Structure formats: structure tokens, C-alpha cells
């Protein structure tokens, strides 16, 4: 087997040195009745060439964004991924290292995380960011738990503008500490501030909103924050950092914790994972933060170096008292984001935002001009918008798939009230030609 280095002769030599007759003898602790008495019932080993053929077959059955114009969003986006990222993350020294427990032999990883933390703090407008959480949804769950632990309160006021899949994840995480989500309805695409005002109380740990929200609309964070802070609750904002080179960062609008799905920052969609959970907060909350943190320090000779720090928050030190159970995170996705942000630089993300919003507005106008189609909401949106269709959205999606267009996400499955709604995302990668083709196909589909 090409992944096993020892030869039969070496195995014998080693057994002799150990003083065991066979590997079987080393398995003495495994009781006979525990032993599997047959080979595993798995497909036989495949040679590399055959396997590649098989997997190319499976991959070929999927409508990837290379061959289909992708207008899907709802938490994962077809943003451009500059070529250098894959080349750099593929260097074995990054790829095949693990958590930098030995900092002297892991400065590469530690420095990239430190850069990442800086970038995420800067984009979100917060003081500190951690080294990553699994994805945007679990990051939001950690934020809610942290708000609970900071405030000692158990009620979470939840805007219906937050991604419903995130809600499902947060509810899972709320099971243990028995936190309760209090739902606040939307007005015309954004959180109804009056309803919100009523929902927030002295028992509220956090108010949770998404920015732009699930429907692509821009929430008035400042107003939400004031309502939250008025009752001593934290403002927790879910925001996609790829948008925050263009949009005012939540940190500038009163957020206490900002989380988000960082997939747009150079991480492939990959059918939804691995993603990148961004987590940033105010400085004074840092000792309650989940996940790893890298800090600067000096070595024995006074030279700058970097280490994992504030580890007393973590499970390997604090066990059941840790701020989170996270251990393995998504460091390599964070590295992708770090390289992505380096490439985009100070001004590139603004351009990404400008392109996306211009194209999204052009698309919205074109699509809403199709007879029977209209924009679902009136609030200002950014790069994603909801359409109300005169025919069942999943049927429209099926029709457009034939034209090699991934038309959007039908929202019926998330909310019965949205059974005619199709959520459409437009990144900078979409072209006018694709949008025009979409408009034409949509017109045909709903005619």
C-alpha cells in the first residue's frame, strides 16, 4: 500500500525488536469477542486512475458554478477567488501542520492567524477577532452563548431577518443552557423596530440581527443597537465580511459582537463546507471569547514572535468551564481569507461591493420588469434581493437550470409565508450577459 511505508521485512524486524510474534499479539487487550471476525464490507481498493474516473463521474453530475451562472446565495456566494490562494494554501508546510502547539516550529501559521485577526477586526470594525469558528452559523451560536455568559441573561431577541438556517443552529446550541429565542417580525424587508423595542427587556441577553439580512436588506444597526443597549443587552450582528469593505462596519454602528460567514473571502463554496466562522468582539469581552487567539510576544532574545494566548478560556485547559468546546477550527479557510484580503487590499473590497451592488440593482430592475414578477421588499438592499414570482419558484428554478442558470433559492422551505419568494444573489462575477439571459429565461418561464 503506497501510504504505508514499512515493508513486510521491516514489520518482522520491528516485531522481533518488540518481542512480539505478530501484530495480533499486540492486540492482546482487545478481547476476542470484541474482534470483528470478517473483513469490513466496503468496496475493494481502487487504483488511482480508476478512482479519478469514478470521482470525475460523480463531480460531473453536479451543476457547478463554472458551467452554470450562479445566482444562488443565502449564506454562500460565488465571489471570485484569485488564483494565488490555492497555490499558497497548498504548500505542505501550511496544509499538513496542525494547531501551533509548538510556536517555535509554527510561526508561519501563527503569523497568518495574527494577520487574519487584524483583518477581521478591521473589516468588522471591532477590537479583536479570534482565529475562527466552524462557520457563520456556529459562530453566531457561540456569540449568543457568550452574550448569555456576559450578561447572565437567558433571552435572545431574534430578528426574522436572520438566516433561518442560522436560527436552526442557534436553537441547537441554546438547548443546553436553555436559552429562549424571542422572534421579532420584519417590516418591509427589515426588522420592525417598534416590535423590537417591545421585545427587548431587562431579561434580554442579546439582540441578534443580520446585516445585510437574509433577504439582502440593510438593517438600521444603530437604531437596533440603541434599543438593545437601552436594556443592557448586547448587540450581536451577523455580517458577511466580504461586504464590509463597502458597507459601514457594524463596529461603527454599535455592535458588541460581530460574527459572520467568511466564505466569500476566497473560500470555495464546496457544497457548503468547510466555511469560515468569523468572530469579533469588543476588547473588554475578550476573556469570554470562544476559540483560539494568537498574540504577539517576544522570544528569549527579545525577538518578535507569536503564540496561542489566553488559553485559559479553552477546553484543553479549562475543560467543562471553557468558553466553548471548539478545538479543531477552520484555520486553513482563515488562511484563504487572509490571502484573499491581502490581495484585495485596502480598496479592492470596496470595488467588489460596488460591482456587486450595481449588478444586483441592474438585475433586480431587469427581473422586476418581467410581467408578474416584483421585488418582495421595499427596503434598500445590497447584493441580494427577494423576488415574488407569479409561478412556483421551484418550477422556475427548474426551468432556468435548463438554460444553465442557477436562478436562486426558493424560500418556501424556510418560511411558509414566502412560498412565492425566490432569493437571488448577484456577486461581482455575474455578467450583464448572464443577467440579461436570466431576465429572458425568467420571462419565458413565467409567461
Amino acid at each position: 500500500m503506497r501510504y504505508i511505508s514499512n515493508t513486510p521485512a521491516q514489520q518482522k524486524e520491528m516485531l522481533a525488536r518488540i518481542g512480539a510474534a505478530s501484530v495480533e499479539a499486540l492486540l492482546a487487550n482487545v478481547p476476542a469477542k470484541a474482534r470483528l471476525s470478517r473483513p469490513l464490507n466496503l468496496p475493494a481498493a481502487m487504483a488511482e486512475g480508476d478512482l479519478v474516473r469514478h470521482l470525475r463521474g460523480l463531480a460531473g453530475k453536479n451543476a457547478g458554478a463554472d458551467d452554470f451562472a450562479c445566482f444562488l446565495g443565502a449564506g454562500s456566494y460565488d465571489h471570485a477567488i484569485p488564483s494565488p490562494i490555492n497555490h499558497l494554501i497548498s504548500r505542505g508546510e501550511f496544509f499538513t501542520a496542525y494547531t501551533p502547539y509548538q510556536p517555535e516550529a509554527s510561526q508561519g501559521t501563527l503569523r497568518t492567524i495574527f494577520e487574519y485577526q487584524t483583518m477581521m477586526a478591521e473589516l468588522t470594525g471591532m477590537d479583536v477577532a479570534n482565529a475562527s469558528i466552524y462557520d457563520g452559523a456556529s459562530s453566531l451560536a457561540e456569540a449568543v452563548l457568550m452574550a448569555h455568559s456576559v450578561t447572565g441573561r437567558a433571552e435572545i431577541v431574534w430578528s426574522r431577518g436572520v438566516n433561518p438556517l442560522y436560527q436552526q443552529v442557534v436553537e441547537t446550541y441554546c438547548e443546553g443552557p436553555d436559552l429562549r429565542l424571542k422572534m421579532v417580525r420584519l417590516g418591509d424587508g427589515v426588522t420592525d423596530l417598534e416590535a423590537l423595542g417591545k421585545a427587548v427587556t431587562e431579561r434580554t441577553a442579546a439582540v441578534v440581527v443580520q446585516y445585510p439580512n437574509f433577504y439582502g436588506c440593510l438593517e438600521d444597526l444603530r437604531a437596533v443597537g440603541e434599543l438593545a443597549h437601552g436594556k443592557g443587552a448586547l448587540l450581536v450582528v451577523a455580517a458577511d465580511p466580504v461586504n464590509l469593505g463597502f458597507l459601514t462596519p457594524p463596529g461603527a454602528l454599535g455592535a458588541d459582537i460581530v460574527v459572520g460567514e467568511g466564505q466569500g473571502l476566497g473560500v470555495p463554496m464546496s457544497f457548503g463546507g468547510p466555511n469560515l466562522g468569523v468572530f469579533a468582539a469588543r476588547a473588554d469581552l475578550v476573556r469570554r471569547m470562544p476559540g483560539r487567539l494568537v498574540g504577539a510576544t517576544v522570544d528569549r532574545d527579545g525577538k518578535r514572535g507569536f503564540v496561542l494566548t489566553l488559553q485559559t478560556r479553552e477546553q484543553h485547559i479549562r475543560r467543562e468551564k471553557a468558553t466553548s468546546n471548539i478545538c479543531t477550527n477552520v484555520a486553513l479557510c482563515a488562511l484563504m481569507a487572509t490571502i484573499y484580503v491581502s490581495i484585495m487590499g485596502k480598496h479592492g473590497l470596496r470595488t467588489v461591493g460596488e460591482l456587486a451592488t450595481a449588478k444586483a440593482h441592474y438585475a433586480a430592475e431587469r427581473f422586476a420588469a418581467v410581467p408578474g414578477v416584483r421585488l418582495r421588499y421595499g427596503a434598500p438592499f445590497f447584493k441580494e434581493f427577494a423576488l415574488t414570482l407569479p409561478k412556483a419558484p421551484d418550477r422556475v428554478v427548474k426551468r432556468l437550470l435548463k438554460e444553465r442558470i442557477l436562478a436562486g433559492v426558493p424560500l418556501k422551505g424556510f418560511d411558509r409565508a414566502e412560498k412565492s419568494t425566490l432569493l437571488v444573489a448577484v456577486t461581482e462575477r455575474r455578467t450583464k450577459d448572464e443577467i440579461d439571459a436570466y431576465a429572458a429565461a425568467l420571462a419565458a418561464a413565467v409567461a
Partner: protein
Amino acid sequence: MEARAPYDKLIFELSAPARFAHSLPALDVPSADPASLVPAEFVRATPPELPEVSEVDVIRHYSRLSLMNYGVDTHFYPLGSCTMKYNPKINEDMARLPGFLRLHPHTPASASQGALQLMWELGRDLAEISGMDHVSLQPAAGAQGEFAGVLMIRAYHLSRGERRHKVLIPDSAHGTNPATTALAGFSVVQLKSDEAGEVDLADLERHLDEDVAAFMITQPNTLGLFESRIHQITEMCHAKGVQVYMDGANFNAILGITRPGDLGFDVCHFNLHKTFTTPHGGGGPGAGPVGIKAHLAPFLPTPVVVKEDDGGFALDWARPQSIGKLQAFWGNFGMLVRAYTYIRTMGPDGLRAVSDNAVLNANYVLKRLEGDYDRATAGPCMHECVVSARRQKKLGVTATDIAKRLLDLGFYAPTTYFPLIVDEALMIEPTETESKETLDQFCDAMVQIAREAETDPHKIHEAPVTTPVRRLDQTLAARQPVLKWTRP
């Protein structure tokens, strides 16, 4: 030989105003002032402080940073409990096929059949490997697999009208076990290990009662020992209605040898980034599928990948008793492709050979070191071995010191100070992909260090001296946290 002053830049420190590395398309739709599209208050007033660098800056900077890391591709990496085996390159190629890599999670099922089939088959294969009835691929890592598992146990008890509050965990357990348990709303009761390092059955007996929801153990345990009385344990637990959870981080020891399901476990997670060769990436991403017995099936996370009567594959959301979701989408799919590729590469005999060789390698290392270091346990080990630097400690040389010296000798270090129940623990997991030659070099280095501890401890205390930085001040880092770069 003299070493060159190592590179010491952060990307921010390469920045020059107006330099850039991006390449963005021109606006091809009728141009509108973005300000007219998005109200002014939503438009960022000042650009973020991000680096302004060229593509050559980016390539050279991150290439150079990579050179400050040890990785499995360049170094033996015997980090115990982490299974730092070779990560096959073909896995990477397969995960990057555009039909996988560029697939949006909300692609209609009819247009993502290949991805769904792969997930379904992988779930089926992991069920066979573990002897479990169902597997959810959704958890993003081992800790999240644990979380899903413990929540399913909780839901199971609740569904039977039982509200149990405690989870038993041996003192040798990994930190995620208690942390997860607490996260799931249970209180943790720590059990002592017996003299041999296994679960102390008497202590277990004492703690088993109707308020115990689960017993969570690692098999083989973190001392590298197979819990030999495992059937007794699971039977004792089941007799009290207690579910038994297996932390499967050490699955590399038992592939094709024994199956958690056959041992009586109700739940078990996998770390695909350990046993199934998905790369560790400097800390992640991984994937932590969780397997369960049939009685827990109603509680599986949603959605579940199912095969339909017509042979097609779909995501099934209609699971009213589900514990819900763990991450937004369906799992760390990219990692699943890699694990699938690996399992198909190996086949049943190959997987069995993995564990045989992992066990052989660990025992070989243990044998070679036992003269110079104290063994943590007697008898053979499974896929990893734990030794103690107790003897060296008496000479003023700690496990940390030994780790640092190893870096100078060209090896990454074993896991240190874990499991907690062993003083000055050095936990060594060679994995099956390493050759005898490499193990011998490593053992030679360990023996050399043992000698140096006796004759030249100063050399060890000075280590490392060949790395880009020398020992770092952890206290300073924690006392005055500097967690981001600021313009000087």
C-alpha cells in the same frame, strides 16, 4: 553553519499606498453611482486599514511564512491524539474537481446528485466501519460531533420522559469531552482511571445511577490502551439506562479490528482529519461525523442525506424529533470528498493494514524508548504510546524542554502534558505512514536527549536554537494581549 536572520514581516508591513494585487472586472452593467443605490449611511466612510501589496508580495510573503512551519510533508510530526499521518495528494485533486469545489449548497438536488451520492455512500461506509446504524456527516469537527452525539442522547432520554443531568467522563479524557458535555447542559462527573490506566469499574459502578445520561469514553483511550472490559462497561451502563458514547479520535487503532457498534456503544464520532487523512491545515478544517444506533435515529441532525426509491439522492428535512442543525449547511463537504477518496483508495484490507501498522509503529517506538523514559502503562499499546519525562524532570528537564530540543533535531514534538493523569506526559503517535527509518531517527533523537539530560541539560534548556524564533514569552503574551497589528 550560521543561520540567516529569518524573515520577520507581517503583510501589513509590506504595504505601500496605491499598490494592489487584485484583478476585478470592469462594470458591464449601466453604471449607476453606488451611492444612489445604497443609502449613504450604509456606505463605509473610511477604507479599512488593510495591506496594499502586489501579487509578488503576496506570493513571496506567504511562501516565506510557510517556511517557518513544520508540517507532515516536511517533518515527522508525532503529535499524539492527532493522527498526523500523510495526507494523500490525490485527495486534494478530487476535492478540487470543479463539480465539487464550485458547487453551491443550495443547488437543487436534481443538479447535485453526484455530491449527494458521495455523502450517502460515505455515511454508509462509516456506518460499516463503526458498526453503527446511521451516520450524520454534518458536524464540522470532533468536538461538534461530540456535541451532536450528546444532544441526541439528551433528546433520547427526554423522549422517554427522563431528564438526566450527569455525564460521566474518565479523568484521562480530552478537554473537548467535558466542555461539550457542559455545553449540552449536563454536569460532568469525572471518573478515576485504575492503576492500569483503564476505566475503574468500581468507580464507574459507584457513579452509575438514574441521573446519569451517558458515559463518554475514548476507545482506545488517551493512554493508547484498549479498554479491555468494554463489554462489561457498556452492559453496566445500559443496565442503568445510561447511553455510552465513544470518542472516536483514536479510530486509527481499530479499523477492521473492532467496531464500536459491536462493543455496545450507542454513539461514536469520527475525526476525518485524523483517521481519514483530511489535512489538518494548521488547525482545521476537519470533519466530525457522528454515528449512532437505530434508537437514536429520530434525533439525527437535519437534513439527512437519503436514497430514494427511484435510486436518487435527497436531503430529508422532515425529522420532527431532530436535534436540529449544527452548521448552516450539510457538512464540511470538501473534507468528505477527501475521506471518501481515501476509503475508496484503501478498501477493506488497506484500512485494516492501517491499524495494524499504526499499532506496530507505536509499540516499536515504545519499546525503543522504554529504557530511557518511564512508560505510562504496562503491556503493549495501541496506535500511540505515552511516556513520562519523570526521570528527566528530576534532572531539571521537563517534557516541554524535551519537546523544544526535538525541534532542533528536526522533528515536531509529541503532545505534551496530556493525558493529564500522567506526569510530564509525552504522547507519541507515529501513525502507519511513517517508516522504521524515520522512527529510528526519532527514537535516536529521544535517546540522545535522555543522555543530554544527564550530561548537558543546558543544551536542552537553550533549545530551540534552529527555529525562526527561540522560546517565546507566553506570560507576556497573556498578561498584555496584543491580538492584532497596529500601525506603529
